[in-house]
């Protein structure tokens, strides 16, 4: 009896240690909670959106892969379409101060206006805390969270890992596919892909 209790404790300790070491969320895991300040000054908590689909979009305005999706209007179209379907769209800015893509709140607001971007909110993450929670590697990496708070997609925005604007047309958009399939009650067929793009400009 004592032995099995001890053994259980060891197992529990080891299981606790594993997430501490790896930390980042994967597809199938509960989406890690976070609280962040949006560029509009509001405080955004992921938990507030339980019951809704949430899209996370890693952003860096100087990255040519991000530029491909904004200059073609693709990202704005996706934001408009999915937010009109009740999806919460959070653009996340994880560039550290002094690095490419770092912006102040007002710079981000100007950018959103200029680009006619319509995310639910743009979250300032200069410490990279949210980025590391989700192990975001690139911009534009995309994550989809279901109403139960589970990560159902993490990876590339589509299947054309290039900077060419013309590649937007005809690409399979993994974010839309995941949302469509999940909303239809089907399993997400492509739940994880290599998130192409520029590396996230973390502080390290």
């Amino acid at each position, binding site marked *: 009896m004592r032995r099995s209790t001890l053994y259980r404790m*060891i*197992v529990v300790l*080891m*299981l606790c240690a*594993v997430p501490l070491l790896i930390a*980042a969320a*994967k*597809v*199938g895991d509960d989406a890690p909670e976070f609280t962040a300040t949006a560029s509009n000054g509001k405080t955004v908590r992921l938990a507030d959106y339980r019951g809704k689909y949430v899209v996370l979009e890693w952003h860096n305005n*100087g*990255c*040519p*892969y991000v530029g491909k999706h904004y200059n073609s209007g693709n990202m704005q179209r996706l934001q408009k379409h999915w937010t009109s379907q009740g999806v919460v769209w959070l653009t996340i800015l994880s560039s550290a101060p002094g*690095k*490419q893509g770092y912006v102040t709140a007002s710079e981000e607001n100007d950018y959103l206006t200029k680009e006619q971007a319509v995310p639910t909110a743009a979250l300032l993450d200069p410490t990279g805390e949210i980025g*590391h929670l989700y*192990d975001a*590697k*690139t911009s534009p990496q995309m994550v989809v969270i279901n109403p139960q708070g589970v990560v159902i997609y*993490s*990876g590339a925005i589509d299947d054309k*890992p*290039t*900077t*060419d604007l013309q590649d937007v047309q005809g690409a399979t958009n993994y974010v839309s596919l995941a949302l469509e399939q999940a909303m239809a009650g089907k399993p997400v067929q492509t*739940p*994880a*892909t*290599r998130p*192409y*793009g*520029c*590396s*996230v*400009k*973390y502080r*390290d």
Partner: protein
Amino acid sequence: MRRRYARLSFSRVAVFAAALLLYTAGARAEGTPIPHGTLELVAENQWIEAGRATHLGLRFQLEKGWHIYWVNPGDSGEPPRVKWQLPAGVSVGEMEWPTPRRLGTSSIVDFGYEDDVMLIVPMHAETALATQGLAQIGAAVKVLVCREMCIPGTAQLSLTLPVKSQPPVPDARTADWFAAARKALPRPAPASWRVSVADAGDSFVLTAKIGQHIAQANFFPREESQVKDAAAQQFAKVPGGFRLTLRKSDQLLKPVARLKGVLVLAGDRGYAIDVPVTASKADAGEYGSSDGDRPAFVAAVFRPPSVVAAPQMAH
């Protein structure tokens, strides 16, 4: 300085230079600017012999600190892509990639090249290719050049080579570049090596019996989304070799049949390996195997049995 000299000499002897380019030193082409570097299409030989294979090179020269990417770029970035424009009867084979370097930070790791690197491309000319003519070879290259940030570039390269029936003569100008590029290519793993890869749940355990002890080794996965690029590769000595524990990529949701890539030994060059992935003993519910050489043992000693026996991919 080099640039100015080049421009001066060209302006002085433009006509001669053009003639020389085409007929004497056939494998010559101008370096084309790309972001933070230049790119040149070169040939190993002075002319193409109909019916024989030869090699072309894409020679990148990058400013200090800037890099381009390997065929598997790692966590971010993108390898150079080439669209060839070839005359009828001429074809190119698969690009040969030198052993890459690990680049990046602690959380994001890329694979690529800094400074000077040449990618070798095999080229074949059909026997029926008309000799006494000139073959115009074009290459439209898309390349991402990165340092802290990334800049996509394009270059339209061209090279004119005479086609002859006699065996080709190496181009003295490019000989050193090809020699260096070949030296940088991974060589086939020696036949005496025994390399195996076991699936240990959230890791691949690569065991290499190479008949000697080395201090360190590193594996570069050829395919994307198999190995977690930024994870430390755990090195351990085993009798007659070493073992590397490679964390699986989060994007890997299905079992893989083979692990392909380049194994770099400390102080040595890279070796190409292509090894079938076998199910680990741990998968069958066994653990604590007494056979210390079996990769399953690694999984068993570092994780409680309940974790080892659990399904590897729930989704």
